[in-house]
């Protein structure tokens, strides 16, 4: 996964406690992590200390960083100063590994976004060692 080093990040940042921190740290290294259960094989995202299917302890696995748009919205009004640059696209992405992931979708005119379109993940750092995962057209 491509990593864009953005040390000017103005938006709210993740607290990164527990497994969350491992996810955002891996993203800063270009790895998109999801979880898989060694007991039942269930895959999940966001990361947790338990398998939501069987209750065992999940393990990390690296996803390919590809997906398709499941649904999206174009935000045209939001009073948070960090998001003053409107409009922008937010989307739910279906990953081929079987989980769904939320994130920003960039590099496309909001009017051109379509459900089902293929997208690729990239990471955007919000501090020296952590990054958020964004998506762009494949």
């Amino acid at each position: 996964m491509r990593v864009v080093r953005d040390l000017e990040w103005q938006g709210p940042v993740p607290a990164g406690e527990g497994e969350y921190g491992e996810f955002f740290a891996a993203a800063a290294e270009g790895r998109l992590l999801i979880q898989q259960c060694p007991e039942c094989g269930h895959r999940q995202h966001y990361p947790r200390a338990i398998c939501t299917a069987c209750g065992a302890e999940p393990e990390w696995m690296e996803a390919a960083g590809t997906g398709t748009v499941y649904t999206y919205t174009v935000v045209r009004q939001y009073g948070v100063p960090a998001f003053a640059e409107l409009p922008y696209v937010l989307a739910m992405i279906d990953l081929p590994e079987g989980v769904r992931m939320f994130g920003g979708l960039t590099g496309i005119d909001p009017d051109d976004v379509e459900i089902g379109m293929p997208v690729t993940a990239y990471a955007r750092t919000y501090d020296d060692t952590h990054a958020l995962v964004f998506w762009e057209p494949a």
Partner: protein
Amino acid sequence: MPSRDPVICGIGLSDYPVVPHLNSVQHHALAARRAIADCGITKSAIDGYVSTSGGGPGAGDDAVSMAEYLGVNHRYIDGTMVGGSSFEFHVQHAAAAIREGLCDTVLVTYGSDQLTRMGRVLGTGGFQRDAQPVAGAMQMATPYGLPLVGAYALAARRHMHEFGTTSEQLAEIAVGIREFAGLNPDARYRDPITVDDVVNSRMIADPLHKLDCCVITDGGGALVMTTEEIARDLCQPPIYVLGAAGTQTHWNIHQMPDFTEMGAAVCGPEAFAQAGVTPSDIDTAQLYDSFTITVMLMLEGLGFCGRGEGGAYVEEGHLRRGGSMPTNTDGGGLSSNHPGMRGIFLLIEAVRQLRGDAGEAQVPNAELALACGSGGWLSAIATVILGKDRPT
């Protein structure tokens, strides 16, 4: 035979929609006073208390604080907080407690000074304005700039994609509810609107326009629930809790398993089965209308129409005054009032309809009413079925 069948015997609304002189605690109290006066119960007979904070952190209106403030020395307390549908869950819990004999008479209260205290920040004004790091699962969404409206827009867009639902069909929901708001002198907005007005209103988060979104107000409400036996000595006819069921499919919107099916599809059939009735038996529905899409997903989940058929169903005018399923007869959250968690108003309006006290908005011969609340982001859903006659 004296019956412990749970009933709603008293209802009270605090003032709304814009009430700068009341704080959240005072909204709880005003609504409680009116609900107690409504049914004429002796206050000291209240031995159960159910509530959740409408004012949020720092408001001092959490359940234990409010029990003290209101002077309720309870034998049964429940502070379940699942967002806007909390009060449908509260009725489920209180009905079980009354039936089981854990207590006899439960006061349920809600109060919120949201508009006065926070303005419109909850919608698009900047809920996460401060730069505090975001903990928990919300950190997977909030850093990307997800407003509340945007979360529901994700569901609306998917519904349009899967079923061909149109903005005009969603707009019809807002138009019908505004028509009822015109009959409610206290409603926030009362002037009639058209489908064109809705689809031409400002786009907030595609595909939801300004008029697809609920209003933001102050307000509060209260219920008194008791046994059928005790209610016989009170001054209002008892309204029976015939069914009450809830479910949670997720909390954060990004965890919704299927963006076009909400938990109403689970708790709706369960509540209908408890009541021994079907959707076509219901005379009026009070559905949580945070956004037009919330109502459409609820109609489908509850079985008023088939999955994906919500657009065609609302276009046929069923939700309108005089339609087969008059919906949100007080003007709903889309036009009347929405202080943040609207679930209690669904129940109060359902009771007014079943008492025949709904004035110009009265549904003729209403005998069965349904209230369905949605809490979180289409997450925690509960359905309550109320009747004017005792269960058979």
